[in-house]
């Protein structure tokens, strides 16, 4: 059963249409301000998406509201008109159309809109078909006439304080009486004592009833804090700017176009506080499951493993796990270990183990690599998903702690400058044993961290990522120049921006004219180099140490490893070519917006208001490898612009004949071919 577990973060939908994020701590009290309070224990062990009434007065806790009651209210909203108390279900479907039309003109509109045969089988449809057009027309006209005759308006309703004769003292008294009945009684009395209640139209009455229901019944619904729910909460209730106003529809586009799948390797630059990472993790199966539920220290798992190994070196870590830790709680951790070992076997990691430290290896698949500008990534929004980012390096059994790899731009581009990559002064075992436990564990932690970061840097620089997502306010040219070379061929680059301008710039940097010019210059430059130095482009290049190294006394061993790292392809940006335009194919900008409708019978319309702010734009492009030798031109046959269907599948021979006529009309590429002659070269 998927139920609310102790210490889960849940979202509570309040009667005021707002949502509250609450952690369900056992034996605590959850307070909802004016809506009252209830014990957390009355939520634990219950399924999500149920509706509850907060008990008042003597009772303490929650009382479930049956779904049929909630939906019944919605289904019967149009029936609130006093004359038509009979519920839809009670009527025979076959004659309901006419019957209800006569009984209650208020229903007529609804009937034509959705049909009363709701929930019945196909019989009625056949009848509908049998009705010929003339009869149908008559029916419609009859209903229309009835509707007009008895149509109520608000012309006789005076908007003043005296309309409601029930006083607030009376309401308070009823409230005090307690129980769930009190709320319903208040509403019933309110409706009774409203002066104009029978003058209200059905719709207005329904609205009035709903308003009062929300106010007096204190109903809440508990929904899980998964990525879409949490996004909406963050967007409407918290600080949308912190997450770049990233809406669900944009998130969907990002995740889809970036081709996020279980088993892939992805690079991400996330200024949304971790929301993009969370969505990716959800799609990679890294947020669900027992391990992801409550944070558990990995040291427990390690301890367990050590019992099997009985490795001398591990023994020093006993102190680290510490006496403060509770006993390895149970089979769950054991299962986690089991899973972990399984997994290691399964994805034979490409990274070599360098020493005895565990948890420093980088998984070969299903990873998210976060590139960040500061020392630490800002992934604070991962907290509701039970992932604490303050200890990002493998401290819990949470799937993310091993599959989320984080490194700063400094660590990627100039690893020798970063002190975390410096190996701590080695301490011989004999000395180590004599040290205080705190110092010892510190030493081991440092060593482990160095190994882990080194592994992350190595694996990241080797590239071959399946896709990259960039959601940042940073200048995009630099980011793209860093990220694009690390992508696999045909890998997807997806950029999200709250405004369109940064993205349109990127698209312009890849325009056909610019790309052709760049190719030409590059080819000439390459030819010149090859002539001059007999340059071998096939030889793999390795990392050239940063001359600006801020960490000069880094140990030799690390330097040796770093020197072996592959050289990152470098593009020198200039004013004309901020990024290498040949790397990215067909950058395209999308924007998507969801419009929500009020879906009530006879009263369906788009919501009157919705959130403004940023539209949210998603750009995607595909990483490609251009042909550098020889001249490449888009020459071909171009038919009509409609789908180009006629143009496809034509033979080569035929194409040759028609070429002269068509070239230059539709393709910008061939236009450029001509244009090139007029352009002089810009020295890059």
């Amino acid at each position, binding site marked *: *059963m*998927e*139920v609310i577990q102790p210490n889960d973060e849940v979202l509570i939908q309040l009667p005021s249409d707002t949502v509250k994020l609450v952690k369900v701590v*056992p034996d605590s009290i959850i*307070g909802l301000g004016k809506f009252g309070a209830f014990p957390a*224990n009355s939520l634990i062990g219950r*399924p999500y998406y*149920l509706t509850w009434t907060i008990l008042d007065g003597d009772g*303490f806790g929650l009382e479930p509201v049956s*779904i049929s009651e909630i*939906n019944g209210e919605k289904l019967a909203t149009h029936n609130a008109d006093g004359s038509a108390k009979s519920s839809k279900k009670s009527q025979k479907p076959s004659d309901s159309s006419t019957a209800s039309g006569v009984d209650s003109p208020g229903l007529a509109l609804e009937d034509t*809109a*959705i049909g009363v045969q*709701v*929930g019945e089988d196909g019989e009625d449809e056949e009848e509908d078909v049998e009705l010929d057009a003339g009869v149908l027309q008559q029916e419609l006209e009859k209903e229309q006439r009835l509707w007009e005759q008895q149509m109520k308006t608000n012309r006789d309703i005076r908007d003043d304080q005296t309309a409601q004769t029930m006083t607030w003292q009376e309401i308070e008294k009823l409230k005090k009486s307690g129980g769930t009945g009190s709320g319903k009684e208040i509403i019933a009395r309110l409706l009774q004592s409203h002066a104009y209640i029978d003058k209200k139209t059905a719709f207005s009455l329904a609205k009035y009833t709903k308003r009062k229901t929300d106010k007096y019944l204190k109903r809440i619904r508990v*929904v899980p804090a998964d*990525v*879409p729910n949490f996004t909406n909460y963050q967007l409407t209730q918290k600080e949308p700017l912190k997450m770049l106003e990233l809406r669900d529809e944009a998130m*969907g586009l990002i995740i*889809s*176009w970036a081709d996020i*799948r*279980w088993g892939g390797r992805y690079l991400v630059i996330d200024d949304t506080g971790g929301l993009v990472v969370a969505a990716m993790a*959800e799609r990679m*199966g890294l947020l*669900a*499951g*027992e*391990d992801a539920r409550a944070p558990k220290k990995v040291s427990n798992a390690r301890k367990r493993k050590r019992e099997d190994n009985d490795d001398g070196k591990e023994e020093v870590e006993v102190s680290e796990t510490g006496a403060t830790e509770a006993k390895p709680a149970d089979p769950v951790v054991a*299962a986690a270990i089991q899973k*972990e070992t399984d*997994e290691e076997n399964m994805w034979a990691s490409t990274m070599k183990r360098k020493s005895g430290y565990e948890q420093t290896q980088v998984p070969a698949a299903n990873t998210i690599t976060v590139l960040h500008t500061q020392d630490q990534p800002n992934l604070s929004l991962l907290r509701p998903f039970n992932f604490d980012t303050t200890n990002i390096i493998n401290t819990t059994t949470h799937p993310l702690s091993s599959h989320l790899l984080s490194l700063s731009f400094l660590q990627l581009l100039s690893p020798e400058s970063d002190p975390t990559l410096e190996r701590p002064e080695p301490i011989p075992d004999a000395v180590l044993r004599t040290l205080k436990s705190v110092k010892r564990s510190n030493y081991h932690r440092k060593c482990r961290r160095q190994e882990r970061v080194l592994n992350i840097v190595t694996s990241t620089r080797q590239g071959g990522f399946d896709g990259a997502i960039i959601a940042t306010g940073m200048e995009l040219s630099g980011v793209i120049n860093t990220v694009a070379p690390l992508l*696999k*061929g045909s890998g997807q680059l997806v950029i999200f921006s709250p405004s*369109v301008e940064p993205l349109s710039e990127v698209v*312009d940097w890849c*325009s056909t004219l*610019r790309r052709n*010019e760049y190719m030409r210059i590059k080819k000439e430059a390459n030819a010149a180099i090859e002539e001059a130095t007999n340059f071998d482009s096939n030889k793999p290049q390795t990392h050239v140490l940063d001359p600006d190294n801020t960490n000069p006394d880094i140990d030799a061993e690390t330097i040796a490893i770093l020197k072996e790292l592959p050289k990152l392809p470098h593009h020198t940006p200039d*004013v004309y070519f901020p990024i290498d335009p040949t790397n990215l194919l*067909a950058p395209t*900008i999308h*924007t998507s917006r969801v*419009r929500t*409708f009020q879906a009530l019978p006879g009263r369906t319309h788009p919501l009157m208001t919705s959130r403004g702010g940023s539209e949210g*734009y998603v750009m995607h492009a*595909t990483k490609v*490898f251009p*042909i550098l030798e020889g001249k*490449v031109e*888009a020459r071909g*046959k171009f038919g009509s612009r409609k789908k180009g269907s006629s143009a*496809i599948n034509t033979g080569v021979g035929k194409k040759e004949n028609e070429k002269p006529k068509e070239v*230059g009309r539709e393709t*910008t590429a061939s*236009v*450029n071919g001509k244009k090139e002659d007029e*352009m*002089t070269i*810009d020295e890059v």
Partner: protein
Amino acid sequence: MAAVAQQPIPSSTGSDGKAIVAFADSAFLPSPNSSSNIVPNSRAIAHLTRDVLQSVLILPASSNTPASSTPEPVANLKRKQPSGSNSNSLNTRFGSFPHSSLLIPAGSQVRSSSGAGFIHILRPTPELWTLSLPHRTQVVYTPDSSYILHRLRVRPGSRIIEAGAGSGSFTHASARAVYNGVHEKLPPVVSTGIETIDSATGSDAPSIETTSTQTGSEDLQGRVLSFEFHADRAAILRHELQQHGLHSVVTVTHRDVCASGFSLPDPSLNIGGNTHATAVFLDLPAPWLAIPNLNRANGSLSQTKAARICCFSPCLEQALRTIAVLREQGWVEEDLVEVAHKRLEVRRLGPGGKEIGTKSRAPGGDDELKSISVEDSVGRLKRQLWHRKAKQAKQRELMAKKRKLDAEGDGNLEDMGDDDSDVDMDGGEEDEAIEAAGEENGSGKLHLFHQGRVVVRTEPELKTHTSYLVFAVLPLPWTEQDEAAAKLKYPIPPRPAPQVNPRTGKDYTSGSKAPRLTADGKLSKNQEKKLRKAAEKAARLAEAEAKSSNGPEETGADA
């Protein structure tokens, strides 16, 4: 983490043995060991232009009669024959590309056999496939499908029912979303291709697997259970999925779900007795007829998780009728939305309102010079007037000369004509020179792509409406017995005495500032201290007041 880790269901596989997970051999799905090259017998996408993508099934170089090995299930169903399926080369408007020339790293630019044109060859993704697939029905495009999958919480390991598979666009997208490795032995795949490295590991993994997952109800594999009532469409889709290596993830069943329901898609499929889906996508003309077939009692929906549904209907009437049925059937959180998606075009707008790099620059096009600015316009008009005046003056002069000559007798008319044309030419040349100077930048070099400004506009053909989406959730059933049992398991404490701030009189029983009990029922030290201090202070205050005057006692009463 391993696929096992994603399943919240406490599984027996965790304790009794290993759940072997193998990567599927599909170009749509990841396989960490395989090369990034396009391999034979796989799907690839040829990128011709942004809007023209052609899918191609790469055939092994050795076989010359490829079509015979995997025949099309239905010869031709309102469907273009995918190009290249009959020959060993891909024919496009940019030339012909032999399949052997496409066995290169994905993402490479490829020159055609004649050398004249080029394409890019890409690894397929559901998005690219959506743009290149043969249409059999209306296609669910990426803006809709991405939003639907996001809202339906389709994750690795989920089971999704899709009814009305149609052209298979949504099928591919959801197959990617549910995929969490392949857990069970599969029927042998027709493979004539080169043996890849991971096919070896894949072959021995399932053999162990068959013994461990006989338990049935513990099927952890993510699955798409696809239903299609059109026999030929179902057959073609099945064939396509087989070609794409997705047959282990998707089960296509030929059935009318409105009449026959969703349970038991295929008796031979060992997935724990029934569909047990957590997500449902209905792309049917009358979803309200199928919804009553979706319930927990008949096993079509998951017994342990909330189930989510999305119905995709183009008309508002359909959507409303669907919602009414959903409400009757006990679904909650019903939501009616519409996705409005736009694709934007980015252009450079040159001076004079012309787009740079488009056909407006083509010879013989609209080459009339336009003014760049007000000053320019004024200047140009002034120049024109000046020229005209000069011309008129000259003409007057000439006429005068002519008259004089006429009067004198013999005249040279041809000279006069030449002079006339010279004046015109001068004016034109000057304009062009100024224009050219304007386009030239400081170093005297011309970069057309850097001229003007970047502009963004909506693409010319806009999809203003695709369909209405109806979302809803079916919560797990919760009876009074369940509630009583839960109350017993997690006892509810009595309502605590109201905690009132003695000074302000503010009730913070339920407020955030109220001292919270820790898990073991004790207050933290800080909180205890605070409370004690507050109590002391209140007591002192009360004392002081009582001493000074026997007046109002409201403050003391609460303490």
